[in-house]
C-alpha cells in the first residue's frame, strides 16, 4: 500500500506496460527483442498480482507467492529461450523471425 496512490493508478500503469509489451511482441522482427517484450509482459502482470494482493487482500499472501513463481518461471523460460536461440543461430546463422517461417509442409 502506497500512501496517496489509489489502486487505479497502479493498475493503469501496469496495463500500459503490458500493452507496450504486446505491441513490441507483435512488431519486432528479431527473436531476442521479442523475448524482451515477453519479459515486459510478464513483469507487468507480476506487479498486478502483488498490487491487488496488498491493496485488497492484505491478510492473504497469494499474490506474493504468485509473483515469486512468476519470477522463477520467467527466468527459467528466458534461459531456455536463449539456449534455443543460440542453437538456432548455429543452424541458420540468423535470429530473424522471417527465417524461421517455413512451415513443415
Amino acid at each position: 500500500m502506497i500512501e496517496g496512490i489509489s489502486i487505479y493508478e497502479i493498475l493503469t500503469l501496469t496495463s500500459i506496460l503490458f500493452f507496450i509489451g504486446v505491441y513490441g511482441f507483435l512488431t519486432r522482427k528479431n527473436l531476442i527483442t521479442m523475448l524482451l517484450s515477453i519479459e515486459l509482459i510478464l513483469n507487468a502482470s507480476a506487479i498486478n498480482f502483488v498490487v491487488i494482493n496488498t491493496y485488497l487482500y492484505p491478510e492473504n499472501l497469494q499474490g506474493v507467492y504468485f509473483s515469486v513463481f512468476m519470477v522463477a518461471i520467467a527466468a527459467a523460460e528466458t534461459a531456455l529461450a536463449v539456449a534455443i536461440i543460440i542453437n538456432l543461430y548455429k543452424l541458420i546463422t540468423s535470429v530473424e523471425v522471417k527465417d524461421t517461417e517455413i512451415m513443415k509442409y
Partner: protein
Amino acid sequence: MDFSYTALIPLIPLAVFLLLGMNYTRIKPAVSGWIGSLGLLVTLLLSYYTAYQYFFVVGKVGEVYQTFTEHWRWMTFTDTLYIDMGVMIDQISVMMLVVVSTISFMVHLYSRGYMKGDGGYTKFFAFLSLFTFSMMGLVLAVNLFQIYIFWELVGVSSFLLIGYYYTKPSAVSAAKKAFIVTRFADLGFLIGILIIGYYGGSFDFVTLVDPEGSAIANWASTSFMGLSVITWGLILIFMGGAGKSAMFPLHIWLPDAMEGPTPVSALIHAATMVVAGVYLVARLFPMYYFVESGYALNLVAWVGAFSALFAAVIALTQNDIKRVLAYSTMSQIGYMMLALGVSGYEGHDGLGYMSSMFHLFTHAMFKGLLFLAAGSIIHAVHSNYLKDMGSLRKYMPVTHITFLIAALSISGFPGFAGFFSKDEILVAAYEHNPFIYLIGLLVAGMTAFYMFRIYFGIFWGEDRKYEHTPHESPVSMTFPLVFLAAMSILTGYIPFSSLVTADHMPFEAHLNYPLAGLAVGVGLIGIGLAYLLYKKPSDLPERVSKGFGNLYTWAYHKFYFDELYLFITKEIIFKRISAPFAWFDRNVVDGTMNLIGNSTVAGSKGIRKLQSGRLQDYAFAFIAGAVILAMLFIYNWII
C-alpha cells in the same frame, strides 16, 4: 380373348439382342446367325398364330373386328395421371406384326450369307434383333407415350445399323443425318403428343380414336390461330411421321441411309421403319378424319402426293441403284400417305385406308425383295453404279427372275401384287380428288420407267466383260429372294377389304376396270420407253437427258435440297442463332460458374495467408480476437 401372349413377340428379339450383345466376343459368328434367325423364326410363328387367331378364330363380333388391349401399369404419378405399357391387337397391328416378322426373318436369313466374313457379324445380328424388338413394340403400342418410346428406339436402331461400317466417314455422317433429321421431326411429334394428351384428355389410343369420345367430339373447344388445337396436334404428329417416313421436306436422310449394309436397307428403309409414319396416321385415322372435317388429313394427302412426284422425278436420273430404290421407296410411301389422305371412314369410303394398308403390305414384300436382290448384285459386281453393270442375266439367273418379278409388281403389271394395291389407291384417289389422281397416275408411269431403266441397265444393256466373273449368291441368300418373289405375287390375292378397314367392318372392293386399264396402260408405256432406251446400249438416253437440259441437272442433284438445308443450318442457324447462344453459354453461364469457383479459390488463397507460419501473426490474431470478442460480448460495444 386373352392376347397377352403377344407381349412375347417383342420380348423374344429383345432377349436375343441382350444375349448377343452381352456375349459379343464369346459367340462365334455362325452361332449368332443361327441364334438371331431362330429367335426371329419363333417370333414369326407367334405373329402368324396371332394373326390366325385374330382374323379367323375370334373373327368378327357382329360384323365388327374387335380391338383387344392389355395394359400394364408402368409409371404412376397420381391417381389420375399414369402411363401404361401394353399391347393393342387390332387389324392393322396384327397386319404389321405379320409384315415386320416376315421381312425381318427373311433379312436374317439373307444376312447370314451376305455378312459372312464381316468382323462385326454378331453385332449386326444383335442390332437387327434390337430393331425388330423396337418395331414390334411400336406396332403393338397402346398409347401415344409407348409409341413415342419405341419410335425413338427404332431411330436408335436405325442409327446403329446405318452407321454399321463405322470406319467409313460417309456412313457415320449418314447415320448422324438420319438420326438428327428424325429427331428434329420427333420434336414436332412430342409437342403434338402433349397437345393431344392435354386437350384430348388422354394418351390412350382406344379413347382417342373413339368417334363419340371426348377427344374427337370436342375438337372445336379450343382454337389457336384459326385452327383447332387438336388439328395442330395432329399436324405436329404428322410432322413426326413425315420425318420417319421420309416425306418432303424431311426426306433428305433416306438416300444417304443407303450407306448401311443392304439387308439393313431392305429391312428398315424399305419395308418396316419408314412405314412407321404411315402406321401412325392409320392408327390415329379417326381423329384425322373427323377433326375439323379432315383438315389435317388433307395435308397428309398433299404431302404424300408431292413427295411421290418429287421422288419419282429424282429417281429417274440417279445412277446408283440403291439410291434409285431409296427414292422409289419415298415415292411409294407417298402413295400410301396419299391413299390415307383421300380416304373416308365408313364402308366403301374407307377404300383409301384399306388400299394404303394393302399397299404397305405388298410394298414391303417387293421392295424388300428389290433391295435384297440389289444386295446380291452389288455383292457380285462390287459396285453400286449402273455403269459397272450389264448383261448380268447370264450370270445370275435366280436374281434376274426375282428382280423381274418385283419390278413387274411395283410397276403394277396385271396379276402381280402391286397391281392390286396400286389400283385400289388410284380408285380411291379418283373418287375423292381428281387432281391427286392425275399425280398418282403420272407417278405410276414414272415408277415403271425408272424401275425398268435399272432392270434393263443391270440385266441387259452392255455386254460387259467382268474381271471377276459374277456368280450367283449362295442358297442362304437366294431362298429369301424366292420366297419374297412368291409373296410379291400371292399377297395381291388376299381379300384385304374384308380384313383391314377404317371402321373395322369389312366391305366389298371391286376392280374398277377402266381405271385399272388406264393405270396398266401408263405402266406399259413406261416399260416400253425403258425398253427402247436401255435394253441395248445406245446414246439415246444421253440425248434425251440433254434435251431436258436444266431440269435434268436439277433432278440429278436432288433439286439441291441437301445444299439448301446445309446452307440454312450452317449459315443461318449455326452462325446467327446458335453462335450467340453458345457464346452466352460459354461466357455468361460458364463464366458465372467459373467466377464462383475462382472466387472460392481466390478466397482460399487469401485465407491461406492466415496460416503463415509466423508466430507474430498468430499472436496478433489471438490478441485481436480476444480484444474484439471482449468488446463485443462482455461490454457490448458494437463496433
